């Protein structure tokens, strides 16, 4: 039974990493948002399982917040933003997807190496979760770096935040207050970014973040 508990937690966290790779692979707006919703759902399942394993009822609240906020509200809002911006038919021209994926593999390997060395004495359940969570965070960062469209950068940012929640629930003892405030700050960030997106578009007629670089004179 104990073995199964560990394996199932391991499985859910591993699935998060897999979904992060799916995010890197997607280049269409709506599929990207759907995959992001899937990631939030998996996160919610993972947090709920941790709540069950650690016998910590407040983690159920976290799970519900993740499910409602990140799997439903944020994707729906972003969906509408994408429709209003009129970029839902755009196919993003990221560099080679294969190369990005390869780079992502390197990041996963890096986080494994770092975490296994750094947490040699920790509880195995927490340890594995941390290694996976760090991978999700790094893959979210990679997504923000490689994408040019502002909306997919936001998705990268949100998936990074998913990784942080995964890390926080794996380690015992994150207070509920912190969790709720993080959730609401993400919501505020969404609103700010949403407003910002429209401002950027008004100013530059595009949500391609390279337009900003050109404006600053960094790129001709």
């Amino acid at each position, binding site marked *: 039974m104990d073995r199964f508990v560990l394996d199932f937690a391991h*499985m859910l966290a591993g699935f998060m990493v*897999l979904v992060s790779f799916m995010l890197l692979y997607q280049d269409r707006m709506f599929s990207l948002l759907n995959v992001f919703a899937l990631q939030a759902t998996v996160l919610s399942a993972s947090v709920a399982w941790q709540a069950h394993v650690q016998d910590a009822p407040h983690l159920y609240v976290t799970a519900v917040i993740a499910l409602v906020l990140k799997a439903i509200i944020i994707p729906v809002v972003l969906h509408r933003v994408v429709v209003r911006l009129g970029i839902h038919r755009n196919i993003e021209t990221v560099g080679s997807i294969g190369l990005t994926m*390869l780079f992502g593999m390197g990041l*996963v*390997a890096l986080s494994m190496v770092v975490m296994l060395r750094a947490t040699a004495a920790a509880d*195995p359940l927490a340890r594995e979760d941390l290694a996976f969570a760090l991978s999700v965070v790094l893959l979210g960062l990679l997504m923000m770096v490689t994408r040019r469209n502002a909306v997919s950068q936001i998705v990268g940012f949100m998936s990074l935040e998913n990784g942080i929640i995964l890390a926080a629930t794996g380690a015992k003892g994150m207070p509920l207050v912190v969790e709720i405030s993080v959730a609401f700050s993400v919501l505020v960030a969404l609103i700010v970014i949403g407003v910002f997106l429209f401002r950027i578009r008004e100013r530059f007629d595009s949500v391609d973040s390279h337009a900003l670089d050109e404006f600053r004179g960094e790129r001709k």
Partner: protein
Amino acid sequence: MALIGELIMQGAQMLLVLAAAPLLLGFTRKVKAWLLRRKGPPLVQPYRDLLRLIRKETVLAENASWLFRSAPYLIFAATWVAAALVPTFATGLQFSWTADLIVITALLGSVRFFLALAGMDVGTSFGGIGSSREMMFASLAEPAMIMIVFTVALTAGTTQLSEVADFVFAHASLRVSLALALVALIIVALAENTRIPVDNPATHLELTMVHEAMLLEYSGRHLAVIEFAAALKLLLYVSLIACIFTPWGLAQAGGTPAAYAMGFITYLGKLAIGGFLLVLFETSIAKMRVFRVPEFLGAALMLGLLGTLLLFVSRSF
């Protein structure tokens, strides 16, 4: 006496794959037609097609070499051996010591080699295009397959399929690496069997075709043998996935006749479920551009690599 019994079981396995392969193909076609709200051909249609082709005259191009004539039989023989090595209804059969994942991969690799050579032999442009595309896909699908083999072999501690199945059966639990290997193997299987996101098995004469392009010059019994080999390959991959990831119901070595019968029935059930899921996936997705296929297969390669990497995390406690 025991040896004769085991040889009979092995023979039964070889005949079983031969008999079941066209049936699986017919089943997938039938289900696909149902899902599209059509009636579809009868289940036995693939057998009739094969019989018809065997009876027909074989037309050979004037400049066809001995390679062109012998390739179909080589392809068929290698695929049949590979398909018969995968445990279908029982593990630990007489030849199970050769039923090694790497051997099966190598056999399929040589099948691909002969098929590509045959495609180029006559010198038509279609055949050349088909061969070159097949090789392009193979350069990604084969490393991915090898990575999957590594993941499975490192988990189970052996590359022999019978022992892998016994290991998974005995230590049944959720493992991230095996799950990743499963997803990767499904992608590789779709590409290898020229199923829909990669190639369309129902088309003939289309610019994007890969597998059919290599067969354009074949006719009569040669074509029948190659199509039979393609059906066997589909059966092989479904059995491989069933054997590694769902080994429940497989009869153990030296089991009672009841156990073997049980294994046989569950095997048919697994084939039906596998075929149904395949068709469900195919009908819900569109064919992708040829130039997007390397990315699709690259994902399989990456998943295999990730699975191998994660094993070191699982090992660490």
